[in-house]
């Protein structure tokens, strides 16, 4: 969907997000550097806010990856590197980046769809992740094959299970192991997820009993009205109702903890954003606070005002939502 159409749709929301606030929201330091290493992906999920797919050409260059590494090296308070995409594995520079980043000792998270690890060409990442103690975050919208495939495409579920089994064999989510794999649940339609703990119990029960798969925690993430999911909301006639639901569920406490307050998100071309959603809506950090990884200014960025729009209701609805799941 064109960015202008997305913004036009978001503008239709009856109460602008900023009207719910007493003033601007400012960052409170930077602990997480999130890198969107490219929009290329082996999957073509129906809710994807990145609108990723195998035809996408936007890939973070080795040079930009190096600049990110430099920023992390120079700034001790960045304690988490969070790699996302697309499928991060499809960026040819990511392997080397992981190896170099591990040497810095910074906690490293990769958001993988797992299905890609079942493909011969990318299976080496299983060992790369395990050897470098990469924390894996993997989306599984439902424990039922048909329902999961409905969102993430035919054949997804079987590959996911295949890769998860191998990761368990390597030690992921096993007792006394420091290898962590967390799963993400996001709803399969125009509604909000239920309580995270309750869904986690259910996931653990089904995945263990039916597939003998272990994982550490389940994160529930609201679907954000951005990209393909916004398109789905509009074409299915659910947009107004969904936005109303988000608006009704606005939780000011969740606002305190929204992820953009402690994160900077780097786009494939090095531009800086408050989060991955702002990337897709082309709403960058103002150049006054530095807007490119090549001019990263920790001091200025640490107190920058966050660029907000009506998609932000997705982060503040109910228990709140972030890349690490519910905020409460």
């Amino acid at each position, binding site marked *: 969907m064109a960015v202008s159409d997305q913004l036009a749709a978001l503008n239709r929301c009856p109460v602008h997000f900023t009207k719910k606030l007493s003033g601007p929201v400012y960052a409170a330091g930077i602990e997480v550097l999130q890198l969107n290493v490219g929009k290329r992906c082996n999957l073509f999920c129906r809710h994807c806010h990145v609108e990723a797919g195998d035809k996408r050409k936007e890939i973070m260059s080795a040079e930009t990856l190096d600049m990110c590494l430099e920023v992390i090296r120079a700034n001790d308070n960045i304690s988490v590197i969070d790699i996302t995409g697309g499928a991060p594995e499809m960026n040819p520079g990511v392997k080397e980046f992981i190896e170099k980043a591990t040497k810095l000792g910074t906690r490293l998270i990769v958001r993988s769809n797992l299905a890609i690890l079942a493909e011969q060409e990318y299976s080496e990442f299983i060992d790369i992740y395990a050897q470098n103690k990469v924390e894996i975050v993997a989306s599984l919208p439902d*424990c039922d094959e048909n329902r999961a495939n409905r969102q993430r495409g035919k054949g997804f579920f079987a590959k996911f299970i295949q890769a998860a089994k191998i990761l368990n064999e390597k030690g992921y989510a096993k007792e006394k192991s420091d290898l962590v794999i967390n799963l993400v*649940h996001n709803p399969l*339609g125009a*509604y909000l997820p239920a309580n995270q703990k309750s869904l986690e119990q*259910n996931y653990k029960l089904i995945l263990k009993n039916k597939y003998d798969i272990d994982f550490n925690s389940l994160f529930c993430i609201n679907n954000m009205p951005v990209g393909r999911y916004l398109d789905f909301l509009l074409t299915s006639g659910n947009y107004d109702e969904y936005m109303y639901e988000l608006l009704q569920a606005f939780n000011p406490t969740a606002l305190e903890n929204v992820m953009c307050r402690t994160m900077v998100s780097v786009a494939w071309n090095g531009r800086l954003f408050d989060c991955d959603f702002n990337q897709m809506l082309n709403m960058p950090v103002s150049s006054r606070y530095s807007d490119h990884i090549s001019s990263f200014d920790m001091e200025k960025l640490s107190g920058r005002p966050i660029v907000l729009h009506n998609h932000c209701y997705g982060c503040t609805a109910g228990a709140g939502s972030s890349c690490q799941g519910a905020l409460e």
Partner: protein
Amino acid sequence: MASNYYEPEDLADFSNITEYAQDQGAKFFDYYGVSTSAGRLSEREKTLIALTVAMTQNCPYCIDAYTNKCLSLGISEDEMMEAVHVGASIMAGITLVHSTQMRKIIRKKSM
């Protein structure tokens, strides 16, 4: 008066039923909260029961609320439909079992 007896937006008014009778309303919400949240039965089981009652009582508000809650909990369409059939068959049974009264009267009154 609204054009329909049931307006979808009115569901949001549920929390205001305490109006004019605060004490009773507040006590109802305490009771409602405790009864519908997880106990010996899981949240999923209780939500399916609530959905089934909503269906049998033809309450559009509760059907809306509990269908959405089932979806949020990851309850599948076939699980929901099975629950509806439990409600439908029990309702059918309740109707049919009352034919006992009818048949007793028929037997007594007929020559």
